[in-house]
């Protein structure tokens, strides 16, 4: 393919910005590897987690389960023709038939918390859901610890830690994000304040929190570290926080994907696969 055509195609697909540009090594191999391992783990963990949740689709606050007063429940009420799925949060109820509380498995309506397309495996199968969950939980923790070690050892913490200047620029950043104005040129070489806040939150708060609340649900770990129960206010509270963490990861994922798409899909994707990120302007 002639050089000119190739360049045209690369621009047309948004692989490189129009105008003069050069490639900047944005992510190291370790960061890219751990990112994709983490992404895979979270997908398996979320879906197998929903399978486990479906075994008792209700959440409580405190040491034990107050079955008459769950803070959230996905239940099915029998009707003449099948079920009505009901989602309850505190005093509120919604009819969520077809998605939450009651949904179809292979064309047959069943009482189940989350629908088959969201759980792993699809049909109700707690034992298998647990096998998937604990396998990927180990991978998630090992990968996370290696990533932490790497960023501390290489001094990358300062790239993720929001500084005073980042916080001062935050209102401006938020406004820019809403206007879909993203950093370009030199400014695109480092994370902006919102990115730092989001990444710092998932790496140093959400990650440890989801692991610790998961461990608090283990009766053996509670005997080894009773402090976990004190920290989270009981096993059922820990289970509820674990569930909130899972959906916070999902929320992060959705915003992350939207941002990746809006701020230059292919350039972002390439930088997370090959490491190279195209920067507008001339290399100096």
């Amino acid at each position, binding site marked *: 393919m002639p050089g000119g055509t190739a360049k045209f195609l690369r621009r047309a697909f948004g692989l490189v910005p129009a105008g003069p540009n050069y490639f900047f090594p944005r992510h190291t191999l370790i960061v890219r590897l751990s990112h994709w391992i983490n992404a895979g783990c979270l997908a398996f963990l979320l879906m197998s987690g929903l399978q486990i949740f479906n075994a008792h689709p209700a959440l409580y606050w405190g040491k034990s389960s107050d079955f008459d007063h769950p803070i959230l429940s996905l239940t099915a009420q029998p009707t003449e023709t099948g079920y009505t799925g009901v989602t309850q949060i505190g005093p509120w109820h919604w009819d969520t038939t077809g998605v939450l509380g009651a949904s179809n498995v292979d064309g047959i309506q069943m009482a189940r918390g989350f629908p088959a397309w969201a759980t792993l495996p699809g049909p109700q199968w707690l034992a298998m859901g647990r096998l*998937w969950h604990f396998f990927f939980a180990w991978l998630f923790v090992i990968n996370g610890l290696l990533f932490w070690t790497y960023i501390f050892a290489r001094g990358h913490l300062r790239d993720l830690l929001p500084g005073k200047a980042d916080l001062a620029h935050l209102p401006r950043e938020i406004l820019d994000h809403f206007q879909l104005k993203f950093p370009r040129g030199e400014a695109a070489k480092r994370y902006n304040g919102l990115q730092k806040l989001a990444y710092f939150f998932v790496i140093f708060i959400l990650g440890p929190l989801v692991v610790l609340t998961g461990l608090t649900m*283990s009766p053996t*770990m509670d005997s080894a570290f009773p402090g976990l129960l004190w920290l989270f206010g009981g096993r059922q509270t820990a289970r509820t926080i674990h569930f909130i963490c899972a959906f916070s990861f999902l929320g992060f994922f959705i915003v992350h994907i939207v941002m990746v798409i809006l701020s230059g899909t292919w350039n972002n994707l390439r930088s997370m696969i090959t490491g190279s990120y195209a920067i507008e302007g001339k290399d100096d």
Partner: protein
Amino acid sequence: MTENRRGFLTKVGAGATAFMLSGCTSLSQQKWLADLLAKVEVLTRHAQRLFARPDTLAPEFSKRDIAPVFRANGTLDPATPDYASHAANGFRDWRIEVGGLVEHPLSLSMAQLRAMPSRTQITRHDCVEGWSCIGEWTGTQLGLVLAAAKPKAEARYVVFYCADNMTSAGDAPRFYYESLDLLEAVHPQTLLAYQLNGQALPIEHGAPVRLRAERQLGYKMAKYINRIELMDDFSRLNGGRGGYWEDQGYSWYGGI
């Protein structure tokens, strides 16, 4: 050009991942995969026991934490003629045979079990489904019973046989059974419990005697126990995985 090719390869990779996720349900039916995923169970057990020493106690609670109604799960009544006649006379003739790899096989009546030193503990019952209930259990430490039976050196597991048949009428009976290793069996909070909240154990909770293993999940705590056997290996017993639910794919190690 390499960027383009790499980009294409990534899309293929992403597509393969999506295909894998949707195919995971059928993959789950493959025995080799379940066996591979289950390898992690050994890692989990070793890791947990690294932190939880043999004598670390499960948290105990106060009277005001006790659930007004303790949820019953699994078999709620074995309902066999034999069990019904035991229940009718207050389990006076119920016996727990202790045998297998022991020097002194025992046959304990409920009165003999109750005459042994007892332990009362208010603990949290954690079901594998995710819920928890707090109750006060009274019973004999399993360690005391085992000490009386004197396990032989090669004994490694304690198997509990139960009076509840898990199959429906007409099918060949399969009675509930469970097993612990000796480390968990001699834990101070592991009881042969005969009381819940100060009352004789109700039928739905495993009358006249059930296991309490407070660092484990609910399915490990066999109800309606009538025989205890010490073994060096349970791989030739029933489904070979050491328990009724284990034979259905649940982990033998129930610590998480």
